[in-house]
């Protein structure tokens, strides 16, 4: 999905001064329905503490004893607050009312995207950039402080945790993943061991990667000189891919949407240009600094 805009509708169940509390069943049913539909709901009671008001649109629902309270002038002017009485409306009916107000206001419907994306544990990340090199979908990037960052969350492929498995420090989490430590559970020494085993490409090839490659080259030369069989090569490639997919827990759909060779080359070119620009900029900054004086050297 293109760009992720902040949610723009907050529902407030007002049960403070001047209102009659909602019926317990009505309140719970409304909460369940609204949360299932993706809304943020705040319950307000007298003397209670909640998250402060924001600049987005707020829909206040309550059973008001003396009719609807007046909307403050500023909010009325900006049209960012609406008050509705929900007396006699069921919990599900309340959720339907919210949906109607949202649609009438032209506010984006929540829940249009499944939030699956990597979250970095910066306490563990060493900025090695293995994940950035590994991910083919441009999810990762580097910020101005040269720190790894997740820049395109919506590019991430739902249910694919492969990049977290190539992280040697188990610093990449997918909070909705089934198992730890990828789901955010505590990282144990044994996890680090098993994670690194999974990503060690040399182990996938059976030990010493260079020896494997040399042997593979020799065998290939011999084989291709006697039998140049493209279908066999394709089969072998498929077998390798299957093994990699199993080890990294990559869903089938991800393999179906891999970018083309051209896309990858294009991305590599862009990354190279970005890096060159950054290097040039840092060189300019260095050039603009005055030459160190005797004092600077502490002499």
């Amino acid at each position: 999905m293109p760009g992720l805009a902040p949610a723009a509708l907050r529902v407030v169940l007002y049960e403070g001064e001047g209102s009659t509390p909602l019926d317990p069943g009505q309140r719970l049913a409304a909460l369940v329905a609204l949360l299932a539909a993706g809304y943020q709901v705040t319950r307000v009671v007298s003397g209670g503490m909640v998250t402060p008001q924001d600049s987005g649109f707020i829909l206040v629902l309550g059973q008001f004893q003396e009719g609807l309270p007046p909307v403050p002038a500023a909010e009325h002017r900006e049209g960012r607050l609406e008050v509705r009485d929900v007396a006699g409306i069921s919990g599900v009916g309340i959720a339907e009312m919210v949906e109607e107000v949202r649609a009438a206001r032209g506010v984006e419907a929540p829940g249009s995207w499944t939030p699956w994306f990597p979250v970095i544990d910066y306490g563990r990340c060493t900025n090695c950039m293995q994940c950035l090199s590994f991910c083919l979908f441009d999810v990762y990037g580097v910020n101005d402080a040269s720190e790894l960052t997740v820049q395109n969350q919506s590019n991430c492929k739902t249910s694919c945790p492969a990049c977290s498995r190539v992280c040697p420090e188990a610093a990449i989490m997918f909070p909705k993943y089934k198992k730890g430590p990828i789901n955010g559970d505590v990282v144990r020494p044994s996890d680090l061991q098993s994670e690194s085993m999974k990503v060690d490409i040399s182990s996938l090839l059976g030990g010493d990667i260079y020896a494997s490659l040399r042997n593979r080259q020799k065998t290939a030369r011999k084989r291709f000189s006697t039998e140049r069989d493209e279908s066999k090569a394709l089969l072998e490639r498929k077998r390798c891919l299957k093994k990699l997919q199993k080890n990294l827990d990559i869903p089938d759909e991800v393999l179906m949407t891999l970018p083309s060779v051209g896309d990858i080359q294009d991305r590599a070119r862009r990354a190279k240009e970005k890096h060159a620009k950054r290097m040039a900029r840092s060189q300019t900054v260095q050039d603009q600094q005055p030459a160190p004086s005797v004092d600077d050297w502490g002499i």
Partner: protein
Amino acid sequence: MMGRMSQAKETRVVYCNCTYAKVVPEDVKTEVLARLSQSGMAFDAVADLCEMSARKDPALKRISAAGEVRIIACYPRAVLGLFRAAEAPLAGDRVEILNMRVAAAADLVRQVLPAAPPLKEKT
């Protein structure tokens, strides 16, 4: 659970419903939300902290900036990472994160609503 705060009256409660995944046990989510709803306390309930983090929802900044908060969600490491990713880092000494993926509903309710009557044993 990370952090442990006093049961100060001004501690806010944020409940995450993890709406877009089925990784939090349904019975735990339902029981905790029902108890919160029954209680006379104010609270914020969000559909999904992950979605809010990806959207860099300004509400996360307000949650992290507004003093002591008790967040009922999932693994503390994940919750801290989600807030940091949204440029709303949580201060370790002002936040308590309760994990619905591993804790029993009765334990969570005891921590959030100490005055609540014990849950009935499920048979």
